């Protein structure tokens, strides 16, 4: 269980090309990197401070490595990792835009980053002021009245929103049971609905890729607590009949929830509040360029219309009459949804992004994002037609169905070939309603030259599929590893170093 005696060499082959041992395999008993401050505090033996019954006999079997090997290991791992900083990441629904470096430094300022979350409010007026400004900005962008900054990601925002819905109906003395979701929705939506204590009712898309309004109407009754939509939807299409949808849902007393994952498309163009939405979550790690960190952290603030504001989570930062700031609990708050105040440093970055862009810049963001997506859509029309042949917003869902039919090369193969070409792959097989979906979101920070290079690569792949389909099935070959045996991973679960077969160890 502990480190292999002797350990492996730290120096692994060059520039990310070869497998890297795990840090445990680099471990040698007795080696160490840690250096702690000299404190002068009396070093009373622990056994004199705590009863032995509490104490472990052996230290935790963590790796034992030198600082040099620690650096080598994680630097080499970083060379086995694609990132926005290395190249285009047209991952649909994820809005992988450029993350400005200036905000890394802002989020690391000692006066920002080294503040304890339980510091009394009089000593954190700067933080409270910033959070109040951010709340106002998010309301301005969404057309809402108030917001909570606590949810740590989009899904947490969804669940918060659903609990707000529940609290609202409960306050009206109603117990509603169902929430409507289009069939193109992201998986977090139905999962959140369940956790919110509601039943999911799926609404089909129509031939245009939009919510089937008739089917929607048919599903509406007074058991419906609300509907969750994103607009543009996950097909990258604007729900043109949003006003009719809103009216219909409101008519039965339901609420409209806006999944903000696609907000990038409409910044400064149209606001969810003006479309009739009551609750909106934002993914700051998409729309406002906070870095994704390989899977997180994010931030998923929830903004609401006036009638829902009293239910928001708290405590919330508030400006007092004398221009000071304090924490207040909204009168009928659903309560806390985070250990502290939300992912504060992510919020700080988003505020910085909003300040740099301002009203004019945000609108340019939406315009360029939509321009880029449409350019790709038209350019790729012959090789990868859009699933729905109409102008798209910030992303476009292409289909490789025809390619598959004629060559056997699937969306997955196209994705893997694209990795070889130096691009991250689009999102594949989502939304579920599209066959062989390739969901491409270029974002506004990619240049026309990069778009053209992506299109060239995709077309090269399509041509190649006709000439030599096997090559596509074999792809990728130039990546740090090739296609994985995913079935084996699930069948013989090795989720820690200790699960490994003895033969595979060391």
């Amino acid at each position: 269980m502990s480190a292999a005696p002797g350990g492996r060499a730290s120096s692994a082959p060059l520039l990310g090309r070869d497998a890297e041992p795990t840090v445990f395999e680099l471990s040698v008993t007795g080696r160490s990197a840690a250096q702690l401050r000299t404190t002068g505090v009396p070093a009373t033996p622990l056994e004199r401070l705590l009863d032995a019954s509490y104490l472990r006999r052996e230290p935790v079997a963590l790796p034992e490595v030198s600082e040099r090997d620690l650096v080598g290991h994680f630097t080499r791992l970083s060379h086995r990792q694609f990132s926005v900083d290395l190249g285009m990441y047209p991952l649909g629904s994820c809005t992988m835009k450029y993350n400005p470096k200036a905000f890394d430094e802002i989020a690391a300022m000692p006066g920002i980053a080294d503040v304890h979350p339980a510091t009394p409010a009089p000593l954190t007026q700067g933080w409270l002021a910033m959070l109040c400004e951010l709340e106002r900005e998010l309301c301005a962008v969404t057309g809402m009245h108030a917001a909570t900054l606590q949810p740590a990601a989009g899904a947490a925002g969804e669940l918060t929103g659903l609990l707000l819905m529940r609290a609202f109906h409960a306050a009206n003395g109603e117990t509603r049971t169902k929430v409507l979701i289009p069939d193109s929705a992201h998986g977090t939506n139905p999962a959140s609905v369940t956790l919110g204590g509601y039943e999911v009712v799926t609404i089909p898309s129509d031939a245009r890729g939009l919510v089937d309004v008739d089917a929607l109407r048919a599903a509406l009754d007074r058991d419906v607590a609300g509907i969750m939509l994103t607009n543009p939807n996950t097909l990258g299409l604007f729900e043109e009949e949003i006003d009719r949808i809103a009216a219909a849902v409101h008519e039965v007393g339901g609420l409209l929830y806006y999944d903000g994952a696609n907000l990038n498309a409409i910044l400064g163009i149209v606001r969810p509040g003006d479309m009739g939405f009551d609750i909106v979550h934002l993914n700051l790690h998409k729309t406002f360029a906070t870095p994704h960190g390989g899977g997180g952290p994010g931030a998923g603030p929830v903004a609401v219309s006036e009638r829902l504001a009293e239910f928001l989570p708290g405590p919330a930062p508030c400006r007092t009459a004398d221009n000071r700031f304090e924490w207040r609990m909204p009168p009928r708050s659903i309560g806390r949804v985070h250990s502290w105040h939300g992912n504060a440093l992510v919020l700080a970055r988003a505020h910085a992004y909003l300040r740099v862009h301002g009203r004019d810049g945000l609108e340019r963001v939406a315009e360029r994002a939509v321009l880029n997506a449409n350019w790709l859509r038209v350019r790729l029309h012959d090789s990868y037609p859009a699933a729905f042949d109409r102008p798209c917003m910030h992303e476009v869902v292409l289909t490789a169905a025809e390619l598959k039919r004629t060559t056997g090369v699937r969306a997955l193969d196209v994705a893997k070939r694209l990795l070889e070409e130096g691009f991250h792959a689009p999102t594949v097989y989502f939304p579920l309603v599209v066959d062989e979906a390739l969901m491409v979101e270029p974002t506004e920070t990619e240049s026309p030259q990069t778009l053209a290079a992506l299109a060239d690569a995709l077309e090269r792949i399509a041509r190649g599929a006709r000439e030599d389909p096997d090559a596509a099935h074999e792809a990728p070959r130039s990546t740090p590893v090739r296609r994985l045996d995913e079935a084996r991973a699930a069948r013989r679960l090795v989720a820690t170093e200790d699960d490994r077969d003895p033969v595979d160890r060391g």
Partner: protein
Amino acid sequence: MADYLPHTDAEVEAMLEFLGLSGLDELFEVVPAALRLAGGLDLDEGLTEPDVAAEFESFAARNRPVGRDLVCFAGAGAYDHEVPAVVRALATRSEFVTAYTPYQAEVAQGVLQAIFEFQTMVARLAGLPVANASLYDGASSLVEAINLCVGATGRQRVLLSAGVHPHWRAVAQTLASGTGHELEVVPLIDGATQWLRAPRGEPVGVVVVAQPNWLGCLEDLAAARAHADTLGALLVVAADPIAGGVLRAPGELGADVVVGEGQSLGTKLSFGGPYLGLFACSRDQVRRLPGRLVGETVDVAGTRAYVTTLRAREQDIRREKATSNVCTNQTLMAVTAAIQLSWLGPNGLAEVATRCAQGAHYLAEQLAALHSIAPVTSAPYLREFAVETTAPAETVLARLADEGFLGGVAASALAPGDDGSLAPGASGHTIVVAVTERRTRAEIDAFATAFGKAAR
């Protein structure tokens, strides 16, 4: 006009022409005119980066950070531990920072392997065989643990020790309004959870206890396990990972799920986030595990490789039947924790925990010797303890800040007075004080002196 958009005007023109459009506006023709925003967003015009940095300098100037400004004796769930430059340098490498979730494993081995290593470390710390790739924070890990146990037992009744961090309990309470779980708080007496022999009513599915609890007291996990056994319930332990460097692993003492807050493992205080939810469980529960799990496998050439696995639990596949709704998690903090724990090693982690205990006990001695102030409970403690003050806790903290100390956390700021963790009525005058391995004897001496004066 400062932004990050590459397009020149000429390029925009050319692209529009390619699309057969005459203006950017036409891109949005699908948006009903009546809904279109007239007059632009109600925001200021954009600024340049240095202007915005200057604004943040002035926010920063209105905060009192720990470090050069305040010497930190605050804990209560967020701690001032050493984070070395090497951990920062590695964890901020842009390949880790600017990657998305590892959907394409062939180009994401860096993050995937780091998470695999993280999972191993968390599992070993917890004394359980499986750990996930992180959740949002300690509170969200607790909530997911409760959901898992309710799912496994089919029982919605949950006994929650009052020693669990008040904020975590509050979050669990909020989210229970959706799931319908019934949470019952079990009070502390003299710092230890007072399990009732046989609580009346519905059968209990989950028992939750914290180690140490939020007042710093060590709990008797064997007793909690025995209690859970009596009830036929699963046991969740909210364990501190630093204390875990010297305390017996909850998994070995019978915990079914171990959760924790991983901030102490390399992440700055950060005004409360992004932090790191730790989650480990027994092998039986792996198909109920919330969030991502990385597994080892091989590629077509037989090379060892890593991939997210057992994905059929997750929301993008399972949708409304998923074990959890979590998607984006706290991967970067998990990678950071893996680096920090590798830096510490077994002995480093034990040394940090030991020094915390030494510092906390040294402070307690000084407070007792100089001012006859003693911890409010007689329970054993490691890194922190609660004391009562004559002056209101908030006043005491304000006075200490004037002396350059973040003097602890007022219990009343976190928990309503009557939440079962303190003697009734004590909370407005109770401060939870923490001492980490970073506090020097000179700092502790100065603090003890100042505290006595401020507490009067």
